């Protein structure tokens, strides 16, 4: 495995873990159906969108590098 691949896997692992944990946390809160937790749940889901955007950017950047390398 190349150094670039290692760096990519390392960099993507944190936002991916955050996304996974936040979605699981949000699901648990929704299952509890406590009205006072709705604001917190929304905050978590917005945070999830931020993590998705970070991962998407990383994947797009990595794909561009790989396409250039193969040309």
């Amino acid at each position: 495995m190349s150094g670039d691949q290692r760096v990519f896997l390392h960099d993507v692992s944190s936002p991916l873990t955050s996304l996974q944990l936040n979605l699981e946390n949000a699901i648990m809160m929704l299952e509890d159906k406590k009205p006072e937790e709705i604001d917190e749940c929304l905050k978590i889901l917005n945070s999830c969108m931020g993590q998705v955007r970070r991962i998407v950017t990383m994947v797009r950047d990595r794909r561009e590098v790989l396409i250039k390398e193969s040309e």
Partner: protein
Amino acid sequence: MSEDSPTILIVDDEPDLRDAIAFDFRRNKFNVLTASCGNEAFKIVEATPNIDVVLSDVRMPNGDGIELLDKIKSRDAQNPIVIFISGFADIKLEEAYDKGVDAFFGKPFDRKALLEAVNYSIKVSKQWKARKKQRVDLELFIDVKFLKSNFAIKTRVQNIGRGGTFIATPDRNAALGEELEFKIHSPSDPAFVVSGRGIVRWLRAEADATGPVGCGVEFRSLDDGGNLNLVEVINYTRTKSFIPRK
């Protein structure tokens, strides 16, 4: 903070991940502290005597997880417990366990498995704190039966860590994650027996400068009475290592 609840310090330079893990542990009735780097975390450890577990990323600016582990284990080999959550290939497993880490999780990890590992480590740590008696040095041997491959070996124990040992397997190696039964005994003290079940945490496929072919084994459950014998040996050797490299 509740005085009865365990206390965990979460160390990661990613605020979103730190918050998500903290949220999870708070829901599971932990007192939660957080830090964004190793240097900040060690200051908190020094100022807070009742921390049970430090859950730390490995690669961070301003003091990485390995430096933090070294500082914590040099201060007190057994407390607090240190568990690594790591991105890709930050440190070799055998090096991390030898330096004293109690468990190791790659990101992304399973939240239930992490919570179980934290609770298990706290339970074992409490048993150890209750037993401080020292004993004379013993020559130890281990009989091992690997349960998947049905491969058995008897060998001398070179070093024993707080949570496991290295088993030299010159003829045939085990599989990563393979479970096993073991019995540690001493010819000089027939009353000394530590038996139980373990799991292979890392493999060394070829002999190198650190040691021969073999595997790092974590003790996962001990039969009645064995834990007290083991704790006496560990307290005598005062090792920082969780699973020694040889």
